[in-house]
């Protein structure tokens, strides 16, 4: 069975397991929705007071916000295995069992669980995006949709890469390194606003350091048909999500390095 269909099997099993507790699932999804929408209420209140930020109005910001939320929710949902990697696999020696199977450990970890509760954040992002589209008269033309889908794919790849890197650190530190949350959760929080609102050093970090701007800010500009206030060339903006895939590639390479070291050190 090839990797993709095996992954599909894993996912189906995970979904069935979670559906056995429908009440818990519903409540946690509702809670996840509530927590994330509350944050947006805060954004709304700020716009109610100030009117605009760096030339953007609420509807436009909502588009960026929604895109970031949706992207992160999907990535968060599919990377649970890496999230708990340190405590569940390295500390307990459970990783050995993965290595004993004739399959890539990364694939097995990817299939560990598909967190359905993340649908809370996902629907919040979609709703915020829809509100933003209505308020700013954004039209979802086919080219715009294509750009956005590409952006989401690249974004999922980027965040997945970050989660994988966080897990890789567990090979050395045993516990998952919480501080990396500043890139994952912190990255999502930063991407909620268009990057030109931030000070320069921060922006540079988010485009050249960890290319979060490339999977949210730039493609969204392209989809809106706007030029980048910061001057990025027009041909670059729709292609920017490629950086996310490149990042994932680098992460997987480093991960492989970590796996080899684990196997040679005897765990």
């Amino acid at each position, binding site marked *: 069975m090839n990797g993709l269909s095996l992954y599909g099997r894993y996912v189906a099993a995970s979904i069935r397991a979670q559906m056995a507790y429908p009440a818990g699932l519903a409540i946690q999804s509702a809670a996840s929705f*509530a*927590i994330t*929408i509350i*944050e947006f209420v805060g954004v709304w209140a700020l716009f109610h007071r100030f009117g605009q930020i760096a030339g953007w109005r609420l509807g436009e910001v909502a588009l960026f916000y929604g895109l970031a939320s949706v992207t992160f929710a999907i990535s968060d949902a599919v990377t649970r295995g890496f999230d708990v990697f340190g405590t569940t696999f390295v500390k307990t020696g459970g990783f050995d069992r993965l290595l004993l199977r004739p399959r890539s450990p990364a694939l097995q970890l990817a299939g560990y669980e598909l967190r359905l509760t993340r649908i809370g954040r996902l629907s919040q992002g979609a709703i915020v995006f829809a509100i933003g589209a209505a308020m700013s008269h954004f039209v979802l033309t086919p080219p715009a949709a294509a750009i956005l889908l590409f952006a989401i794919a690249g974004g999922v790849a980027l965040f997945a890469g970050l989660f994988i890197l966080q897990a890789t650190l567990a090979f050395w530190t045993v516990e998952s390194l*919480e501080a990396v949350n*500043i890139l994952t959760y*912190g990255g999502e929080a930063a991407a909620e606003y268009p990057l030109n*609102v931030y000070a320069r050093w*921060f922006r540079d970090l988010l485009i050249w350091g960890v290319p979060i701007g490339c999977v949210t800010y730039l493609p969204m500009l392209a989809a809106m048909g706007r030029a980048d206030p910061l001057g990025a060339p027009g041909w670059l903006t729709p292609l920017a999500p490629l950086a996310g895939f490149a990042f994932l590639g680098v992460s997987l390479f480093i991960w492989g390095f970590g796996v080899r070291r684990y196997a040679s050190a005897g765990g």
Partner: protein
Amino acid sequence: MTPGAALRPYLSVFSGRFQLMLQYRAAAVAGFITQCWFGVIRILIFAAFYAGGAAHAPMSLANAVTYTWLGQAFLAFLPWNPDPDVADMVRTGAVAYERLRPVDTYAWWYARALGWSLARVAPRAVLMVAFASVLLPLVGLGKWGLPPPSSPVAAGFFALSVVGMVLLSAAITLMINTVVVATMTDKGAGALAAAVVNMLSGLVLPLAFFPDWLRPWLRAQPIAGLIDIPFSIYFGGLSGWSAAGAIALQFGWVVILVLAGRAWLGRSMRRLQVQGG
């Protein structure tokens, strides 16, 4: 029984939990780093909003910055989850066995919640204050840092308000504990609590920024005492009589939530006693 003897179990569980949580140093440092980052993001957002024109702002940018740093320093006081011991007990079906201890269950859990929250806040708060009050000014970024309280009187009121914050946090944690016990599941209550608490405490946004017609309601509700009231006192947004009044409100809510919480927990425990846990 002398008061000292009567309090022994509760003092003991408080200090036990406190010392245990202090051992998690790595988590405190990781928490500190994460919170610094989120603090920076929030401050940059404020700065960008203010740059567009601060005519309608309810407080100065400097005060918003102060509020943000204080929020990050005291973040661990926010009651998001039930006490992990209680969640564990509910999961394994062992809540009834808690009644084998010759102590008042509410007071026992309350003392434990106090130890839990204080031990998590203390190291993070120290680190955050060191960063925002000392380090930032040292590198010339003082105006983005955390200044001292706006006056000695404000400092005194602030200290009192922090006591109220701590007591309120524990009372709300006990409420969440009770929900978990009453529903016999650890998956529901805590999750929704976080959303409500974040919004109404002023963490998501200082309550003053919300539309003016909402302000009286937001200021009066109990959860404002977790963040908004103490921090407003700190930078002088509430001073003199209004500060004293707000503190009285804080403590008033503490009393109400403790009494209501006791009654509710007592009823849930009694139901367990009849149902068999």
